[in-house]
């Protein structure tokens, strides 16, 4: 299992400055907060509200020896694997999506033993982030018990001092850096999202540093107009990156649907060319553009507009 003690996590949090200051920066500046060997948690789930603008920048900067954690991981993990950036994956599921079958690059690295896949249940990942966010070293739960995933990760149990019941003890997961993508943020880092929140709140509050990319940078007044919609306060956020369509080709609730054609093309290419195709994807889409906006330009406005229209159709009215 990864991570320091919860005392260290607390001490780091205490020692962190909570300056109310303009935290806007480029993705490149923000991602420089990530060091080789860090545990990076990637917000959203599967292909929903993944901070792709930040993920692309992290791929570009070619960090090494990373641990990556997520609730459910999608093809972005394959890109980190293919470029040799990651040593350990902590999640409950790795794939691309049901119709695309198994993820071949993931299979290669994990089956060969080159990379460790630390598999927990979905709720276990959630409770691990939540323990980290709550500032406790573990939380009790009732899943994982009796399974081989419990055995593989070395799950411990804890006995309730009142009822005598034995429960699973999920150890706190405190990422070094958490990346999330949101709908709105002000320059100080107060952030709001629409729709489901995935595990973003706990993942961010468990972390040592938090980088947020946002569809829109708004005024503090706009945040304060709907204070109940605020998901994280400024003092839980270290960097704010403006990134319209910043989850593309993944979806952003209410803003745009996922681009499944993009996944199709990716999967077709890795089925034909293997790991090399993963590297080529990074060369073409990440290294081949100066920044994420340039990548989106090459995707083209028609495609982005169509995904936005698809989202619009699914919204309550």
């Amino acid at each position: 299992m990864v991570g320091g003690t919860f005392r260290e996590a607390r001490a780091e949090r205490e020692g962190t400055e909570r300056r109310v200051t303009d935290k806007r920066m480029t993705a490149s500046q923000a991602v420089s907060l990530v060091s080789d060997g860090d545990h990076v948690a990637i917000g959203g789930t599967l292909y929903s509200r993944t901070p792709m603008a930040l993920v692309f920048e992290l791929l570009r900067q070619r960090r090494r020896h990373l641990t990556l954690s997520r609730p459910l991981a999608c093809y972005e993990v394959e890109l980190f694997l293919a470029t040799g950036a990651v040593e350990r994956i902590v999640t409950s599921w790795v794939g691309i999506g049901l119709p695309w079958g198994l993820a071949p690059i993931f299979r290669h690295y994990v089956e060969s033993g080159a990379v460790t896949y630390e598999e927990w249940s979905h709720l276990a990942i959630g409770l691990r982030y939540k323990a980290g966010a709550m500032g406790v070293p573990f939380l009790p739960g009732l899943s994982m018990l009796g399974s081989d995933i419990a055995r593989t990760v070395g799950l411990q149990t804890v006995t309730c001092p009142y009822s005598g019941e034995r429960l699973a003890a999920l150890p706190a997961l405190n990422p070094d850096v958490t990346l999330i993508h949101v709908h709105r943020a002000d320059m100080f880092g107060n952030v709001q999202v629409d729709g489901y929140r995935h595990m973003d709140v706990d993942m961010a509050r468990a972390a040592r540093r938090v980088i947020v990319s946002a569809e829109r940078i708004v005024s503090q007044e706009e945040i304060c107009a709907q204070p109940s919609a605020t998901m994280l306060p400024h003092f839980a956020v270290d960097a704010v990156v403006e990134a319209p369509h910043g989850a593309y080709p993944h979806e952003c609730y209410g803003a745009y649907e996922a681009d499944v054609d993009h996944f199709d093309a990716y999967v077709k290419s890795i089925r034909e060319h293997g790991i090399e195709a993963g590297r080529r994807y990074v060369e073409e889409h990440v290294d081949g553009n100066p920044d994420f906006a340039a990548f989106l330009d090459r995707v083209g406005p028609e495609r982005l507009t169509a995904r936005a229209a698809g989202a619009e159709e699914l919204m309550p009215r």
Partner: protein
Amino acid sequence: MNDVTAEELMAITASRLLADHKVVFAGVGMPLLASAVARHRQAPNLTIVLEGGIIGTRLLPGHLPISTNEMRAAYGAQMLTDITDIFLFAQRGYFDYGFLGAAQVDQYGNINTSVIGSVEHPKVRLPGSGGANDIISLCNEIFIVTQHEPRRFVQQVDFITSPGYLSGGDSRETAGLLFGKIGAVVTDLALMDFEPSSRRMRLRGLQAGVTVEHVQRQTGFDLPVTDDLEELAPPSPDELEIYRTLRDGLAVSQPTTPDLTSSATVRPV
């Protein structure tokens, strides 16, 4: 009936397990489709919950979700929250049914979606648990739907990702899994349940035209037959129309006004 696919047969048979006014925690794919069919037929007040933080999804016909974490899965929902919160509802006992697919299932209803071979030296590393381990550990009654093939129905799974009755008897409870039972396994050939004391899987019903022998040949372990073995009704034209319309997107009337339809629950187990 030649034109009924195995998937249609499974989804429709499974849909009949779901009674009205219940809450089902559905995995994506067949479990979700089966739940949607039930909602359009005998269970208009069925509440479908998805792990993506979604309570009360309605689904837009022809725009079915590929995952449990996307807008299509949230269509028409009454409540959107976060992932962990959904599982905590399950842990509290709110969810009558947990509804899962399975790559590999054994005679005690244990599911493997982690690895073929050993975890140390995997032959195939599968995606992993996702929410399956939690759903099977926390929901009140579990239904499993999968294709009936010998490579899927094995004596003992290579790896217990999601615990059924573990090694049978009271081993599930002893492991600390205090709640929930594995209610049924539905396939394109049959309906199975579990013998109450040994907790071994047994044959309860046959899809139309399927023999006990055929089911046994497609099963990697000995499958006892219950005394009251029944033949399952083939999908009705009505069921097929609902299923296909959901999938392909012609208009299906949404059961938005609960309690107006109170058709008796079709529940073969």
